[in-house]
């Protein structure tokens, strides 16, 4: 097995509702969904975000789109509604922090190389 950053395998975007941050993760290839489900556990995500959040983390899966949604409470130092002291008051960059986490993959694992909207087979070339 070898370790690679999540960003080689998946994209993550983040948004806010008050002081709650939601970080959602989408593998570039749906084949990699199980890998993320298995390894991006609440405990592992808490390790990466622990110093930034005060509350619980919930994890939801969306099988229809092969997505995982992490909901982090007390996560934004007040967020926009409490006017956080952070420069990024919405936590728009939190997805990038999640993409910097690492996951384990087999030695012969080949990460996706094509842009996902090109490789999805939706007629775009």
């Amino acid at each position, binding site marked *: 097995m070898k370790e690679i950053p999540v*960003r*080689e395998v998946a*994209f993550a*975007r983040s*948004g*806010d*509702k*008050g002081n*709650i941050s*939601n970080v*959602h993760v*989408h593998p*570039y290839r749906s084949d990699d969904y199980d890998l993320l489900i298995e390894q991006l556990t609440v405990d592992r995500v808490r390790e*990466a*975000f*622990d*110093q*930034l959040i005060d509350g619980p983390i*919930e994890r*939801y*899966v*969306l*099988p*229809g*789109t*092969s*997505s995982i*949604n992490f*909901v982090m409470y007390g996560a934004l130092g*007040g967020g*926009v*509604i*409490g*006017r956080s*002291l*952070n*420069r*990024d*008051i919405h936590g*728009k*960059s939190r997805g990038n*922090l999640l993409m910097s986490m690492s996951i384990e993959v087999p030695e012969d694992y080949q990460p*996706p190389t094509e*842009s*996902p*909207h090109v490789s*999805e*087979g*939706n*007629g*775009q070339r």
Partner: protein
Amino acid sequence: METVTVGCGSGASASRREKAIAVAREPAVEYLCCDRLAERTLANAAANMLAEPDRGYNPSLERWFRAVLPECVENGVRIIGSFGAANTSVASEQVIRIAEELGYDLNVATVLGDDVLDAVLEESVDLSHWQTGEPIDYDRRNIVDPSAPPLFAHAYLGADPIVEALDRRADIVITGRVADLSLFLAPLIYEFGWCNGDIDEIAGGATVGHLLECEAYATGGNLYEPGHVDIPEMDDIGFPIAEVGPSGEAVLTKPDGTGGIVSEFSLKNQLCHEILDPTAYESPDVTLDVTEVELDGIAEDQVHVSGAQGSPSPEDLKLLVGFDNGLFVEAGGSWAGPNSYEKAETCIERVIRPNVDRWEHSDQIFHGPRYDIVGVNSIHGPAVTTPDCDPNEAMVRVAAKIETEAAADDFADLVGNCVGMGGGAGAGGLVKQVRPNITIFPATIPRSHVDQSVELHRIVPRRTDS
């Protein structure tokens, strides 16, 4: 059966009019739906209205309508938008004036009732926290002046009043705080005649609204990731458009000739955006389950969306209550060239911190200070480590919340002095910002306390003989 095509004309307070025009020019588009509000923009608007009673609506309303309205009139597109912000009546007056000056014969509807400040001030309604359910007074312990009344209180209205406005033949519907997705769902409910029993159809329409309400977030904006996700023509990303069927299923696309992408990947990133429990995403019109939503690319920049499920919406409406809460201060300065990072770090540790500790008004700091080096840790803070390279530039930023304006101003001066006069050689680019700080409590309010209404104004073009 017939379809209805709704286009996104805006997804933020400062959303660009050029993008709305491209959507309005698409022949199929019948409704241009425009979200112009967020939690923070509403607070800013309310503060503007307190300063000047004739303001507090969307700041770019005038230039947006002057540019976009002619395109909509020419193409028979009806406009729905939360341009009212904190001052919907005045926003509508402005739109009516602009339409009169342009010589149009139009009906302008104004949706009122989201402003529930009077009810809150009269304390005729018990407010509880949106999530914890605790009484809101309990939460006010963090307010500088706990006896100060709220500045504003706006409830999230749903689609109903917009449906009524469309039924009364409104060409333009101006709203205040209406839930984002409801702005897009309303014309679908109106056109298809969906009622309470059509819960999955409404869920489909709400999903369309959710996918459209953040404009370019659905079409390749905020998605470029070097080496992994590239976006064509990023300089001109088109806003999303949905052709919706009576079942609530839809095909999403964007205007011909615009940049960006509409793909399964672009849409799944918006589907999850700013939702909490995806089995129960609450709105005033429906509670949405998007876990089984399917996105199927059917052609270039065309994606079929299906599978949304609905359950009844919550009994109460969400409400934002804002309180004046001291001042927000931000101050700092920069270095460039070798050793910049070390100069910035030394300035914080050896100059700014000791000065702030002995500052005569330090008891007025009620949040912070936060010490950042921009480019290193000003966003991810303690979750990141210091750089192992010597960056060419470093900026010190200190942020805090302070009780009074005089002390806040003095704090910014103190930090600026520490950077400019006390720190490492070559300090420049000093910044200083002192702004009112508004704290918002998300609460819930029973629907019975929200008195929503629709006013319709018919514009009759003035005739001139010259």
